Structure formats: structure tokens, C-alpha cells
């Protein structure tokens, strides 16, 4: 049994009468890539927001390395070692690429405020393949390059757990292959990843395990090929089969 890094225990979040996340529990093993999948509106992004502290949950607990992080504000969760990318990109457009990466680094606990951060930002830009544009203004980057920058900034936090919210969405076929390679290289560096994703080819090639959600509940858990052939999952995505 591999070592566990994060555990969600019966987390629940309701918006008025709508239960967006209904007593969802799962474990995250150190070093794995976990896919969080399900149809639109199934509660994936809400779950990510509960982990990152963007939303306060109604009940349940989330532990990181044995420490309860649920109930902490987003800035405290980040300092405990959870980084995220945003579905709708949130870069600072009038800062340079390097400065945007320093945003990820500058507010980590114990980080001194010095020149060395600029040098180190180059390492993260190398990983995502953006080091040749280090001095560009972020607003001048193409869409895929802005996505790369979002990822480099999250990496700069040196997170224990990285949350990717549809980071591969909207890429063309070539860009998608490049994106998959980048995510794989980040896993090899030892980062544990939870990814919300709709792109099935990416889920198949990247994820060690998947958690499938539908209407706020976890309906399946296992390897990608196991869960994607699970009748419950097929039904959630395609509707009930018609019997002739």
C-alpha cells in the first residue's frame, strides 16, 4: 500500500437546496495523478474549491499529510502546500512572465525576498517550456503559453498537491500532446496531482486512478479503464440504456 498524502472524508457542500458535493470521500496516494471526472455540473470544480479553501464546506474533513486543512482560508491552505491553476486563466497581465512566476514563490512560508527567486523562476519556466519568453509581458502570450504560465506559477509554490482545473481544455491536438508530456514530467518530479478533466485521451494516458462524480456524489473509483467501463459511469455520461 502506497503512502497517503491527502484524504477527503465525507465532505459536503450545499448551495441553498442544491447539494453540489454530497458526502464525498477519497484518498490520494503520494506521487499519483488522480483524475476527477464526471458530467458537467457533477460537483468536480466545487470539490476542487473545497480542497483549495476557496469555498468553506458544510461538514466533513480534508487532511493533508495527516493535518486537517479544511476550514482554513485559501491563503493558509496555499501555505500548507496546495497549489492550483484556474479554469479561466488568472494571470497578472501587466507583469512579465518571470514576475508572474515569482507570485507563486514569494509568499511561501520561509521564502526570503531576494534575487535568487528570479533565477529560480527559470527552472519552472523550463519545465513548462516557456523560458525563451521570460521577459515578455503576460498579456502578449498566446492562449497555450498563458496556460503554461499558470502551471509554472503553481509549480513555483512547490506544492505537495497540485490541483489542475481543466488545464488541458481548449488545446489543439499537437498542444494537447505537449501538455500531457508537461503534466507527466511534473509527476516525475514527485508532485501529486488531482486533475479535473474532460479530455478522455489525457485521462487514459495520465491518470493512475479516477474518481467519478455525478450529481454531487462519488459513483465510481478505480483505474481509468475500470471506471470508464463501469455501467454506472456510462449511464451518468450517456443516460440510461434503452431496452428494446
Amino acid at each position: 500500500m502506497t503512502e497517503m498524502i491527502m484524504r477527503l472524508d465525507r465532505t459536503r457542500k450545499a448551495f441553498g437546496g442544491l447539494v453540489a458535493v454530497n458526502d464525498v470521500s477519497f484518498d490520494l496516494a503520494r506521487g499519483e495523478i488522480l483524475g476527477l471526472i464526471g458530467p458537467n455540473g457533477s460537483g468536480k470544480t466545487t470539490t476542487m474549491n473545497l480542497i483549495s479553501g476557496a469555498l468553506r464546506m458544510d461538514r466533513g474533513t480534508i487532511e493533508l499529510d495527516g493535518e486537517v486543512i479544511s476550514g482554513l482560508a485559501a491563503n493558509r491552505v496555499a501555505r500548507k502546500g496546495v497549489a492550483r491553476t484556474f479554469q479561466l486563466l488568472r494571470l497578472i497581465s501587466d507583469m512579465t512572465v518571470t514576475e508572474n512566476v515569482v507570485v507563486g514563490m514569494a509568499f511561501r512560508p520561509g521564502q526570503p525576498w531576494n534575487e535568487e527567486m528570479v533565477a529560480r523562476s527559470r527552472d519552472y519556466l523550463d519545465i513548462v517550456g516557456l523560458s525563451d519568453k521570460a521577459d515578455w509581458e503576460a498579456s502578449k502570450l498566446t492562449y497555450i503559453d498563458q496556460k503554461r504560465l499558470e502551471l509554472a506559477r503553481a509549480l513555483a509554490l512547490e506544492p505537495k498537491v497540485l490541483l489542475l482545473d481543466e488545464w488541458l481544455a481548449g488545446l489543439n491536438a499537437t498542444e494537447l500532446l505537449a501538455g500531457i508530456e508537461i503534466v507527466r514530467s511534473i509527476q516525475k518530479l514527485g508532485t501529486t496531482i488531482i486533475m479535473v478533466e474532460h479530455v478522455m485521451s489525457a485521462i487514459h494516458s495520465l491518470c493512475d486512478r479516477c474518481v467519478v462524480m455525478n450529481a454531487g456524489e462519488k459513483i465510481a473509483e478505480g483505474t481509468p479503464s475500470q471506471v470508464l467501463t463501469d455501467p454506472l459511469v456510462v449511464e451518468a455520461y450517456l443516460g440510461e440504456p434503452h431496452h428494446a
Partner: protein
Amino acid sequence: MISRSPLPYIGILAIAGMVALLPFIVSSFQLAFAIGLLNFAVLATAWGLFSGPTRYISLASVVFFGIGSYTVAVVGEVMPWPAVLALAALIGGGVALVVGLATLRLAGIYFVIFTFGLSEMVRQLVTWYEVNVTLSVGRYVFLDISQTQIFWQLLALLTVVMIGAVALQRSRLGFALRVIGGDETMARHFGLNPTFAKLALFVGSSMIMALAGAIMAPRWTYIDPAIAFNITLSFQVVIMGLLGGMHRIYGPLLGAILMTFLFEALSDRFPQAFSLLLGVVFILIVYLLPNGIVGRVEELIARTRRKPDNTSAGLIGERS
């Protein structure tokens, strides 16, 4: 982003050193004008320190300025001068802390309205207190402080504020404020506490304004709430900040210098229509110079540079 060059500090000190000699060569009328200018320079720079990075437009400048003045009116004759100044800064900072805790979670537009209401409320409160408790609305300030001493104190304050502003811009807190101004939601997810950073800056900026009010108080000899808490001052400070450009340290300072000359000319030639013309100037600035003079100049420089840059950027773009 991270710079350790001492040049800006040396420049600020050198300019301040030269300006300090002014009282020896100018007339007392010119000195009075220079005091007014320095006062606005301090207020506008302090305003820009908070409003520039956070993009919260504060109309509360006069609240803290007035608190400083009133502190002098109340305790000026019973305490040594440095203690009076320290007390003014502390009270200004204390009020800013309470106000900030209550309001800095508000979105920008509500903050503007709140700060406007706050200055009116404080003015009414002080009036009520003076009428009902001390039974006299006005107060006299008889202190043995000369025009020249006021000038030097304001200059020293401005120098400290400018040096502090440069140091802040180079610090982690300064960087944090740029990030918060850029995207507050994102900032939270990278370990920043936006409320704390904004609060720290609001308190610091308000303490400077209270100090300016305290230093200026001996000039008046007589103050009442309508003088000390005159909302026009808040608007003047905002106009100066916007004219110069609030995203740069020296923007509000530039705006303060230009505006003080303009105010002087306007109130000299059209004393009846001063407020009206002030409004017109405000409108013109917002329309024509949304990023202030500094922003406009930077835009022009960028435009002349862009032409050669375009081709190389295009080539790199194609390669990726």
C-alpha cells in the same frame, strides 16, 4: 522588481536638501505657498500609496488630516511637540484600523461612498461634541511654531514618505500589493491575505495624513470642524493623484505640484467659481488622462518603441 540600488534614495535626499534652503531666499508669501504645496504633496503621495496599488479610491483623506489638526488644537499646549505629533499619528492610525477592518472587504464603489460618508460623520460628531460637551465650536491654536519650522517639518515628512514609498515598492509587501491589485482571488490562492495587506497600507497612509494635519494646524490659529474636516480637501487630493498618475510613486507628487499652482491661479482670479472650475478640471482629467500624466507619457514612450519591437516579437511568436 527587486532592486537594491541606492540611487533613488540619494536623489530624494539631494532634492530635499536643496529645497530645505528655500526659506532663506523666498518671501514670506512664497513660503506660505510652498507650505501649501508641500502639504498637498504629502497628502497626495500618502493617498497614492494606498489607492494606487489597491485601486480603492478613498475620499477620507480629510478625516485623518482633520484628526491630526484637532489633536493639536486639543493637546498642543499641554504636551511637548514631538509627543503631540506621535499622538496625532496614533489616533489617525487607530481610526484607520477600525474603519479599515469594517470597510476593506467592501467592493471599490461602496468603499468610495463609505469614505465620503465617513468624513461627513466625523465632522458632525466633532461638532456635536464641541457644542454639547465643551460648549464652544471653535478652538484657538497658539503655538510658538514659525512658518519656516512648519515648512521644514513638512519637507522632512515628505522625504521620509518618499523614501518609505521607494522601499515599499521594492519590498515583498509592495509586490504583494501589486498582485492583490491585479487579481485578489488569485492572490488568496498563493498564500496572500489581501485584507491584511490593504489594512496595513491604509493605516500607514492615514498616519501620514494625520501627521500632515498636525504639522499644518499651527498655521491656522483658529480651527473649527468645518475648517478641519472640509471635504473639498479630499477631492483635491484625489484630483492630484489622478492627474499625476496613481500607479507610480512620483505621480501624485507631480499632480500635487501642478494642481497647487492651478488652484492658486483659479482661486486668485475666479474666487466665486472655484468649486465649479475644480469640477471641470476633475472631469477633464478623468476623460483625457485616465492613467494620469505619468501614464500618458509612458504610453507615448511605449508607442515610439513598439515599432522596432513588433517584428522581433512576431518572429518569436511564429517559432513557438
